[in-house]
């Protein structure tokens, strides 16, 4: 396997990425599709499924591009990690891969990244126009990021509460949250557990919160996105996920099927939200799913 750190030009900025080029069977034409991986909450391409999946896929001949979007690392803390702004970044990553010669592309996202790829696929659901996008993989993806966060904050009695943050966000960001130049960074204590310790604390700006976790964050409501997707969908979740209720994956699959997509698969693995300990099993599921749809077996 060859790994290459790359920077994809994006306006005045760039998208950092790690390209895993499969050399399995390199004497033949390269196996497609290639998979673009999108990180989770505060993540990057050195973490989680972005780190463990590409090498597993590579062994079966599939190349990967793991990208850092605007929401990577501390994008949420400083105001530039707006979920909607990841869409043109993924457009750019796809154009980059097309220029390298790839004709079939799969989008894979973990947790928050699942919301990102579902949002993208919903907005780019015209299959006659977006011909290279062939499927979506959503790992440990919440049914609705705003609802999921609100439930979690309510459960742990967060400080401030969800409603208090919403009220203040409206006050600061009005009347146009996307274009406003007003913003503040905020801490939410007891957001992920019953202590004030760092691991139970969340950090946003009002603006990043608005577009990811606020009640008006339509793009982060996966159930509204998935029903618009017409390409194959694979959902995987840990059965013991303590962040996202396992029923959420079931419900997302059901909504996609009810909307008329006849290629929707959902799998559970015997682990938690991070999929830790079952990386190989997740890899096997993804490889079989890819093989059955894109290879002549």
């Amino acid at each position: 396997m060859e790994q290459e750190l790359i920077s994809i030009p994006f306006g005045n900025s760039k998208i950092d990425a790690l390209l895993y080029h499969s050399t399995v069977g390199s004497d033949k034409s390269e196996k497609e599709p290639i998979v673009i991986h999108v990180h989770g909450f505060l993540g990057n391409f050195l973490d989680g499924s972005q780190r463990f999946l590409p090498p597993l896929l590579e062994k079966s001949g599939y190349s990967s591009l793991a990208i850092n979007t605007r929401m990577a690392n501390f994008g949420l803390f400083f105001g530039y990690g707006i979920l909607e702004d990841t869409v043109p970044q993924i457009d750019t990553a796809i154009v980059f891969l097309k220029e390298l010669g790839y004709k079939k592309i799969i989008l894979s996202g973990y947790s928050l990244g699942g919301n990102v790829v579902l949002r993208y696929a919903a907005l780019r659901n015209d299959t006659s126009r977006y011909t290279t996008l062939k499927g979506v993989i959503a790992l440990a993806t919440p049914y609705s990021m705003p609802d999921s966060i609100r439930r979690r904050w309510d459960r742990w009695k967060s400080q401030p509460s969800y409603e208090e943050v919403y009220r203040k966000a409206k006050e600061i960001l009005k009347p146009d949250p996307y274009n406003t130049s007003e913003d503040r960074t905020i801490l939410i204590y007891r957001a992920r557990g019953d202590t004030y310790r760092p691991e139970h604390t969340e950090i946003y700006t009002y603006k990043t919160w608005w577009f990811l976790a606020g009640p008006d964050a339509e793009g982060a409501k996966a159930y509204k996105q998935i029903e618009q997707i017409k390409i194959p969908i694979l959902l995987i979740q840990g059965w013991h996920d303590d962040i996202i209720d396992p029923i959420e994956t079931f419900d997302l699959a059901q909504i996609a099927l009810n909307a008329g997509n006849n290629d929707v698969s959902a799998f559970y693995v015997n682990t938690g939200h991070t999929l830790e300990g079952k990386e190989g099993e997740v890899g096997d599921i993804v490889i079989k799913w890819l093989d059955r749809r894109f290879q002549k077996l």
Partner: protein
Amino acid sequence: MIRRKESLMSLQTKDGFQLDALLLLMDNKRDILNAPLILYIHGVLGHFLARGTPRLLPPALLEYGIGSFSVNTRMAFMGQIMGQGIFDDAINDIDASVELLVKEGFRQIFILGYSLGANIAAYYAAKRSDPNVRGLILEGCAFSLPDSQRRRWDKWNSVPSYNEVYDKAKEVLGPDPHKSENDQIFIVYRAWGPTFYPFHIEIFSYKAWWFMRGPEAYNAMTYKLISNVRVPVLFLQGENDDIIESRETEELARLVRESGNPDVIVKYIPKAGHDCMENPDETVRVIVDWISSIDSKARWETNNLPA
């Protein structure tokens, strides 16, 4: 353009941290282990892809046959926010990096710290003396991280103030901050400028702040320990640095010289701010010349570099 080999690696520290690092070497150089190799330490909230020196300098120096090992320490990314980025413990990250490089056979190791990384590198060099570490490059090194922050927060009337944070930190962390089970994240508004906007804030956990910026963060007060550095030192600073004052660099260099270490050079990079790679040609030239002067006895085949 030379052919290069890039490897993403993971390494384990003796206290159980798993670190990521990027090794960058020439692909077709025969005597690679005797060529200079720079161990890079990033700055605040940094990592090996951060803009400026961490990202730009390794490939630029590779053109001159100087390899690199850029490590993401425990202070990388959100280390200072989530609490695991304890300044004093970051010495373990450099220990593990040097140990790995020596095990792989590298014998001409230089350590380059950028900004916060310079203070970490100075702390390491004051405490350790591995014969394979041949020199230290300190770019934008603060005289004292705590004093530097206190001055800046006072200048902008930060909210909360430095003393308020200190009082709260003592309350949260109790009598033994290093072993304390208690910790909290806090935001300081108006830390970098006069507004409450996100780009003027700083975020820490009290524990990370205590050992990096608090008034008792003695190992981050570089002036207190730099006299113990026995290897050659190159101080680099941009002429237009708006974060570190030029007298801070001069004072640190003076302290090293007065301790009996004659191998100290200070270079100010014209047309550069806190990040010297705003003037890449001059920065690269200064580093290559300095390493050449130290490494002249080593078998560094600069004349045999591939076209």
